[in-house]
């Protein structure tokens, strides 16, 4: 039946629909890729399903994280061309064997939009699903951060501080070069162009100097209960103040949350909304060791060639095993340029980092700064600037 479709010219439509479904599922697919997929299909032919899948994957997928979602959508699309019927049968409770409904939510959603009419035809089921969804989100809301968008005055404050208090993010001479007077090497291309004008004389050869590049920044923000009050504005401020610097951000409590997608948003409100959705362990406990282990196992490539500055914002009240924290910090220390620890708990001058987690942190951090009151964002910004300067 698929073969028949292909020969009567429906295949391009089908591939296009497939590409669009992938796009809905969050896979970056543009029309050039869809066109490529169609010509790839014509080259490979439809004799073997696995060849077709490999060919489409080669053209349409370009990130490892998309491979799984591609496989699920491919299975759904090229198993039964009558997509709507299949979706319908999936939703009916009496046909649970039609296909294991263990698809990724993204893939499911992408398919559901395609078969929206099918959904409308089954009102009973959609009511039920809605019900279940509400319960789930209620549960989740308890655990999620309650990041409201910034109020107008807060927004102005964040903007002003980000502009006025320039964080002295360190820079290093990179390997790339540019024309400049202080360099040691001669810019030969330009020297020859000048010499051309002076009958081949090299009068004052222009030079090349090393271009400075900002160090990549890794921000780790504690969102556990003890840091609850600071997290929101802290995130907003750091997000605005480190624009233009290669950066990655993670939140941690009992587990690690990747905020890089959220931080790609230019707008602070949009960032907070996404962070809100991503952080599921807000105002819980702190397991810094386990969170750092997760960072090492899954996101170690955020740490670029021992150049990364790690900014750890936590009160150091860690409930995990100190041995693990010690080992993980030791690893982190060896893989970055500096670990800077900003501690908002140090409220009086005689503070000693005696709590187990804090003492481990104190031993490993290259720099630590005590801040007496973090509630005023201005002090926080100044503290950060000071810490980075040290």
């Amino acid at each position, binding site marked *: 039946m698929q073969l028949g479709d292909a020969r009567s010219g429906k295949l391009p439509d089908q591939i296009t629909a497939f590409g669009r479904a992938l796009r809905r599922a969050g896979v*970056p697919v543009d029309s050039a890729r869809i066109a490529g997929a169609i010509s790839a299909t014509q080259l*490979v032919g439809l004799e073997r399903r*696995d060849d077709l*899948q490999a060919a489409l994957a080669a*053209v349409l997928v*370009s990130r*490892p994280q998309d491979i799984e979602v591609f496989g699920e959508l491919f299975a759904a699309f090229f198993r039964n061309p009558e997509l709507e019927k299949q979706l319908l049968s999936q939703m009916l409770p009496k046909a649970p064997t039609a296909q294991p409904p263990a698809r990724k939510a993204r893939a499911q959603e992408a398919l559901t939009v395609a078969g929206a009419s099918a959904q409308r035809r089954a009102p009973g089921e959609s009511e039920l699903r809605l019900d279940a969804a509400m319960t789930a989100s209620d549960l989740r809301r308890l655990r999620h951060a309650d990041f409201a968008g910034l109020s107008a005055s807060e927004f102005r404050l964040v903007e002003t501080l980000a502009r006025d208090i320039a964080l002295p993010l360190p820079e290093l001479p990179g390997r*790339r070069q540019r024309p400049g007077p202080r360099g040691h090497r001669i810019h030969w291309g330009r020297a020859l162009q000048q*010499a051309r004008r002076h009958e*081949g004389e090299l009068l004052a050869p222009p030079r090349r100097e090393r271009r400075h590049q900002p160090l990549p920044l890794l921000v780790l923000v504690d969102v556990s209960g003890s840091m609850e009050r600071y997290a929101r504005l802290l995130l907003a401020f750091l997000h605005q103040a480190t624009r233009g610097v290669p950066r990655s951000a993670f939140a941690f409590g009992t587990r690690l949350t990747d905020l890089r997608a959220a931080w790609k948003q230019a707008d602070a409100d949009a960032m907070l909304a996404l962070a809100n959705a991503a952080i599921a362990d807000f105002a819980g406990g702190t397991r810094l060791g386990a969170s750092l282990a997760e960072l090492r196992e899954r996101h170690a490539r955020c740490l670029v060639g021992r150049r990364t500055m790690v900014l750890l914002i936590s009160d150091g009240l860690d409930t995990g095993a100190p041995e693990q924290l010690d080992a993980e910090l030791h690893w982190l220390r060896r893989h970055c340029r500096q670990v800077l620890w900003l501690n908002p708990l140090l409220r009086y001058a005689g503070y000693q980092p005696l709590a187990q987690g804090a003492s481990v942190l104190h031993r490993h951090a290259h720099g630590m700064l005590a801040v007496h009151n973090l509630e005023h964002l201005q002090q926080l910004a100044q503290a950060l600037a000071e810490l980075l300067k040290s």
Partner: protein
Amino acid sequence: MPELAAASTEPRDIDGWLAALRGVGYHAPRALATAVFLAMRLQRPLLLEGEPGVGKTELAKALARVLQRPLLRLQCYDGMEQREALYEWNHTAQLLHMRAAQNSATPEQIEREVYQERYLIRRPLLQALQTPPPGAVLLIDEVDRADEPFEAFLLEYLGEYQVSIPELGTIAAMAPPLTLLTSNRTRDLNDAVKRRCLYQWLDHPDRERELAIVRSQVPQASAALTEQIARFVERLRAQPFANAFQRAPGIAESVEWAKALVALDTLVLDPEVIQDTAGILFKQREDVAALLPMIDQLLEPDVA
């Protein structure tokens, strides 16, 4: 025209590619052969990502042998610039020429003569474009190590197979080179680069493929030993053992290990010899330490 010239060596379909690659000692999974087939036919670059040691670079070498084309390799590193990747003027020669011609020629003549192709030092990208048909195999290795400006510079090449040199104009490919990019994912590549390429994620091989690879690379090893090696390494990469290691050994490591075991005249794997050669499988002290208590479990025969 390039297609005609290459017709004698280029396999015609996916099965042909599988057989041809096997013929030069590269055991490719079918999905990879499909991607190679498409890269040749659609004349698109092929981006290979995967853990270190799964055979990304080896594929380029195998393809060059199958197609009987020269392999040009551009190893990327941080701060790589156009003059290392594409071309550079031979400034010393230019200067000498300028000096020599100073008294006999007008400045315009000198200028014309100095920017000629013979003063051009060709780097891999330019060499690949100027290889006569059937073209070259160009390996741009570990693109993720170069920085983002370098990726932007690659775009013109990857999309159009041409580069612009201000003094000479645009240089288009005589025959589109088969281009392979590899990345270890130390960072994400720009989408603009990715959308110009076909993409293939290379995974650790299954036992059958590993067995075939070790057999063809280390034919001196006995069949029993090869089988044991393949099973041992497969288990290392699988749960529950894989979690204990920071980096699981790739194919390159298992081949090296097989060679080492042959050199030690090993007939059967035993805990002692594994302990002594663990440094070939793992390159981290923590990983070697984590392996030791597991050896007995890993050596147990299959349950199924």
